Structure formats: structure tokens, C-alpha cells
């Protein structure tokens, strides 16, 4: 009877170990995946923004005033 109980305890411990190892592996893989995605995001952000303002238009003004010949009014 006592040996049977001990076997059950060992079995439970074995299942617990399997569970912990599984969770550990999942956590690590998940973390590695997150880091890889973050690196990809960073790479994608280094882009040349090709948007440009098309059709920029500027003006310059020329002016003069001609007074009457000889400076008369």
C-alpha cells in the first residue's frame, strides 16, 4: 500500500516536471520570438520617406517708379 502511494507521488512529480519544462520552453520561445519581431520592426522603420511636395512655386517681384523727365512734376 505504502509503495503504491510512493509510486503515485513519483508519478505526480514526473508530470509536474514535464509541465514545468513545457512552460519554460514556451516562455523562452515566446521571448525569443518577441525580440525577433522587435528587431524586424526597427529595421522596417529605417526607410526613406519618398513623399515630396510636388509643384513648389515661388515668386519674386521687380519694381520701379519712373518720375517725369528731368525730375519735373
Amino acid at each position: 500500500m505504502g509503495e503504491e502511494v510512493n509510486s503515485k507521488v513519483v508519478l505526480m512529480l514526473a508530470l509536474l516536471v514535464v509541465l514545468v519544462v513545457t512552460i519554460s520552453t514556451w516562455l523562452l520561445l515566446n521571448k525569443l520570438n518577441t525580440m525577433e519581431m522587435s528587431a524586424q520592426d526597427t529595421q522596417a522603420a529605417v526607410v526613406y520617406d519618398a513623399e515630396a511636395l510636388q509643384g513648389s512655386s515661388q515668386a519674386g517681384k521687380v519694381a520701379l517708379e519712373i518720375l517725369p523727365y528731368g525730375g519735373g512734376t
Partner: protein
Amino acid sequence: MESNKVLTILLVAALFVSVFGTLSAINRLEGFQSLTGLWGVANGTAPTYAATNLTISSLLNVNFTDDTADFGSGYISAGFDACTIATDGTETSGCVGFTIPNGLLLENQGNRHAKLNISNTNYSNSLLGGTASGYAWMWDDPEGDATCIGGNFTGNESAWSNLTGVINEANYQSNNVLCGLFNFSDASDLINISIKFHIDQTAYAREVSDTWIIYAIDVSPS
């Protein structure tokens, strides 16, 4: 019985190794805080990570940094047939009262090469009045020929050309291109547009103005 005991010890040991191994690995990778909020690792011994972000914005920006050539007011002195004034400093005898301004100065202040179309809005035979008056222009690139490549006004570079009508797309069959490529490099991105008036003594008193327009189109490779 004895084998179960040994197995139990081994399993417990495996359990501890697995738990501590996992915690240690996660902590070394990026810190446990992001997973649990329990603790951070920015203590100088474990690496921290930060994303870098660089965006180079492009900008087409061509400006008249000197956008006015105002000769002020003046007259032809009695006894003289005409007066010639120009932004290159020309001022003949007989001109009284005029000021000599700098020419219109264009600068490519963006980071894109630009094609420039040039036009002016006001010219007619009677613009200045008188029998022998004239209105001329020329352009030059004071920072070298790399400034302005191509274009339909190469004959007007550093050489006066009398206007006989307005410069625009219609009159030039869309060949009113001043530069096929106006460089944005700071070492060669200036264009000077010079203006000259020849005022005949028969010109009536009047105010004269004209507007020069530059239309820039992005021609940089994307």
C-alpha cells in the same frame, strides 16, 4: 521502494534546475519585468534593449531667398537720352534717384533635385513707355555649373536678353525650363536672376512692376 526514493530526488532536482534555468534565461534575454512586472534588469549587468527609428524626410523647397528687386523711384536727368539700371550694378549717367538692388536669388533649400520652370507675368511693348525703352534679364549660377543642368535658357546664362513678351508655357511651348536639374547640394544651389531696365527719355512717369515665378518639380530618384 529505494528506487522510488532515488527517482523522487532526481525529479525534484530536475524541477529546480528547470525553474531556475528558465528564470535565469529570461532574465538575461530581456528582463523579467516585461513578462511579470516583478523586477527589472537595468542594473548594469544585464542587457537592456531599445529600438532605433530613423526616418529621412524628403522636402522639395525652392525659394527666392532674395525675392524683391526694387529700383525705387527716379528720373532721367535733363539733357540725357536714356537711363539704364540693372541689378548687376549698372547705372548710367543720367539716372537720378534710382536704387540699385541685388537680383532675385533662388536657392534650393530642400533635399530634392528640382526641375525649374520660369515665367514672368508682366511685359508688353508699352510696359516702360517711350520709344526705345527695354527690359532684359539673365541668369547665372554663382556656385558653379553643377547648380543648374540642362534647361532651355542656356543662351541667357550671364548674357542679357531683351524680353519681347512674357516668358510662360504658352509662349515657349512648355520649353520655359530654366534648369532641367536644380541641385540641392549646399555647395551649388544658388541661381541669380538679374534684371535690367533701359528707360528712354520719352517714357512717361509711371509705376512698373513684374513678378517672376519659379515652378519647381521634384526630379530626384525616389
